[in-house]
């Protein structure tokens, strides 16, 4: 049986500041080595200044993944040399002296499959290495410390996955969950990274590191299973080792470094006293936790009668569910869900588009009102939505600018209908014998009016005219 376990690193991008200093947790918008201070540069004499909010966010993640949360947590030093680590040790958490990391064992369902969580720990992200130079001979390594000290949560799973597909499904659920908890924005580059360990029946465990994206993670796991099966079928033993994912060739390669032999000399970080997270604090955090994705979905289905699949799509994406919850007023819920899932999703399908979008919840409410009161056809609404996302103008303004208002004036509509009847004698004859085909004529009217004709009125008038 194939066993796959994961170690996921997730930056707490929703925090204001780094884990141990007042520098910005959002390091991405700074000039190189500009988002630093004496503390995150590890200058002599500085001490870590714990960001209490990070503990809260990490604890919330632990709770959402059904992990045990200890009364007291502690930080440890992991000692090793690496140029991106300004202190040459990383402040992290460990469970060797009892459960002292933010989260103990937990679990999460992926479909019908239960994935056990081993632990969740809070730690500082190292800096970033930039390699310059074409060949290994003249390569130089540059260090950008802007990222150093960014709050990072490590989620370790048991080897409960059996297929790369399960891994992908889990990662999708996890990133939706983290986004919904308002702790992280998984779409930010580098905000979520993962290592995997893979073993097949009768073989040793192999760790894969250096996987840049979740997409590649699935590929790397797939490659590794294939590689191990191939070795196994030829009776070649699978050695326990660490392999690196080669991003260009899309294969794993054995690491020459003896990483598994490193001795991290873990010991308690004396500069951060044990932190008590009392029952009251945990209960308060629990009560302040955002509504879970599954309970959102249930609410959408039972309260608003939104179809299961639509509710699924809507609830799992915080961007859409926030829009939905802020714009719907009960009786327009179905219409708004419809606008979001059929029209909006195509318009804001990337992070950049979402950031640029000028759409406000009030726009959606207006759109739904206009559709429901028959003042706007769905197809005009779609055109209006496109404009709203682009420039954020009021709906009424766009309707008048683009002349999107419904043609609901009977006389005007009748004129058009008569014209269509004279142009399409064959279709008219067909409609007389087979009422189903009248829709072709409705379509013709719509074409003529650029989608603005009130569909119900058009149908009624057509029926009357044809007799």
């Amino acid at each position, binding site marked *: 049986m194939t066993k796959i376990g994961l170690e996921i690193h997730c930056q707490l991008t929703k925090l204001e500041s780094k884990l141990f200093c007042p520098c910005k947790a959002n390091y991405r918008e700074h000039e190189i080595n500009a988002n630093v201070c004496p503390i995150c540069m*590890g200058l002599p004499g500085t001490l870590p200044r714990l960001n209490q909010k990070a503990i809260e966010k990490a604890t919330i993640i632990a709770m959402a993944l059904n992990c045990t949360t200890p009364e007291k947590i502690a930080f440890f030093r992991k000692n090793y040399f690496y140029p991106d680590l*300004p202190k040459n*040790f990383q402040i992290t958490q460990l469970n060797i002296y009892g459960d002292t990391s933010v989260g103990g064992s937990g679990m999460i369902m992926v479909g019908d499959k239960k994935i056990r969580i081993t632990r969740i720990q809070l730690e500082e992200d190292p800096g970033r290495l930039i390699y310059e130079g074409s060949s290994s001979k003249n390569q130089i390594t540059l260090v950008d410390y802007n990222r150093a000290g960014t709050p990072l949560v490590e989620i370790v799973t048991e080897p409960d996955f059996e297929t790369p597909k399960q891994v992908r499904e889990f990662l999708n659920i996890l990133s939706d969950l983290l986004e919904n908890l308002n702790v992280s924005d998984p779409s930010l580059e580098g905000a979520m990274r993962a290592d995997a360990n893979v073993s097949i029946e009768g073989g040793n465990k192999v760790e894969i590191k250096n996987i840049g994206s979740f997409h590649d993670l699935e590929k790397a796991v797939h490659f590794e299973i294939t590689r191990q099966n191939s070795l196994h079928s030829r009776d070649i033993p699978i050695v326990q080792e660490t392999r690196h994912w080669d991003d260009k060739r899309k294969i794993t390669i054995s690491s020459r470094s003896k990483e598994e032999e490193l001795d991290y000399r873990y010991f308690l970080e004396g500069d951060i006293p044990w932190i008590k997270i009392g029952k009251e604090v945990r209960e308060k955090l629990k009560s302040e936790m955002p509504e879970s994705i599954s309970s959102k979905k249930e609410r959408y289905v039972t309260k608003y009668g939104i179809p299961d699949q639509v509710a699924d799509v809507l609830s799992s994406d915080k961007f859409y569910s926030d829009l939905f919850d802020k714009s719907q007023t009960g009786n327009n819920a179905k219409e708004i869900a419809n606008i979001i899932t059929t029209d909006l999703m195509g318009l804001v399908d990337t992070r950049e588009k979402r950031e640029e979008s000028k759409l406000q919840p009030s726009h959606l409410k207006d759109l739904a009102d206009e559709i429901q009161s028959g003042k706007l056809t769905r197809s005009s609404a779609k055109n209006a939505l496109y404009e709203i996302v682009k420039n954020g103008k009021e709906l009424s303004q766009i309707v008048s600018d683009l002349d999107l208002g419904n043609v609901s004036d009977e006389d005007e509509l009748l004129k058009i209908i008569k014209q269509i009847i004279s142009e399409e004698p064959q279709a008219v004859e067909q409609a007389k014998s087979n009422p189903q085909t009248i829709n072709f004529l409705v379509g013709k009217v719509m074409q003529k009016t650029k989608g603005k004709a009130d569909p119900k009125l058009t149908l009624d008038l057509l029926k009357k005219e044809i007799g």
Partner: protein
Amino acid sequence: MNLKISGLEYIEEVKNGNISAEDFVSATIDRIKNIDEKLHAFLQVNSKAVEQARDIDKKIKSGKKVGSCFGMPISIKDNICIKHSKTTCASKMLEKFIAPYDATVITKLKEQDAVFVGKANLDEFAMGLTTEFSAYGPSRNPWNTDYVPGGSSGGSAVSVSAFECVASLGSDTGGSVRNPASFCSAVGYKPTYGLISRYGLVSYANSIEQIGPVTRTVKDAAFLLNILSGLDPNDNTTIDGGGQDYLSEIDSGIEGKKIGIIQEMMSEGIDPAVLAATNDAVSKLEGLGAVCENVSIDMVKYSVASYYTITATEAGSNLARYDNLRYGYDFPVEGFEFNSYISKARSKFGPEVIRRMILGGFVPSSGHAGKYFLKSLKVKSKLTNEVNEAFKKYDFLIAPTVPILPFKIGEKIDDPIALFLVDINTVMSNLTGIPSISVPYALSNGLPIGIQLLAKHNHDKSLLKVARALETTVRLPEVPI
């Protein structure tokens, strides 16, 4: 200009207009220029000290609000960061390190209008107890310049006892304030762990060390504690001292207080003169109404071993950042692989630092941690229990600060084990976090002896009271320099 006055006396003199800050600081700087060649208490002298004192005088004259130090000249151990000035830790590794920020204690002293006369010598990275391990040469004991001044805050103690400043800040990891204070006949005080912020103190063994004042009098120590103590958001280990005034009621006496005499610190290897001085101090305290009894703290015998294991472990980690990427010196990396590069980079460290870093790589390593590091933590926790037990019965504990007299420069430098044992009486308060203070008590053949008093965790105010009581019983001659 009489420089031989205490800090509080200095403040009175300036307040009353008898002296000006400028004159006093200027005379102090002159004295440093005259005698420090012999003593080597300073690694750097502040060239702007007189100017800064003049500015404070102007403030006083114009009736503006003046900080409570009134320009008091203070020296700072060179492992505490002062913005825009070099902080070398007496190491070649940090020869050119200019701190871009102020330590919290420095910020507080600046707010109170202290003047920093210079950075005081120390054993490299505060590892040592003679100041002989300074990469810039040893400091000398002003009572006899052939002798060590103690350490690692040797420069601090020398500068105070030789009147090169009024007070000094040192740091105490295993006795580094109290030991040189004892050897130089100054007051050396290590507060409760967390009472003074360590932000800006270059870490050696961060879980047990504290910044502490070296002063002429116990009252001066209390005065400085009033300024320096308090919660600091930049140091998560700081504790709330309750905003007490450590100076008030300092003369209220010790009538009826119970004092335990630590037997394990009075036995094997103790110099007869030190033993006699301690017994004498005990009878003086009894004369002031205290009740003194022998007490045994069994774990003391393992405390030095535990102390060196823990400090080496933390030092190995704290000093790991000096990998020559950002400190040290430039050399072409061609031809080096990792190990030879690091060993070349590390050659900037002196022998004692290298010794402790090697030890610190070994004792917590997998396969050895159980035998050394974890066992040392057990000793620490057992020792803490025993000390807590003792304090159920006694208000204070007493012992000599150092069991032997100051020795000659070079005498013990090649015998690390012998040197380690000099720490036996001082490491206990670091391992347990309790406050302790060394009070100058006697001289033997012209060499100082200090008596150490210890109190319960966060009972610094009462500790200063008993130290003050003991201090009133002695009158010592002036330093012969």
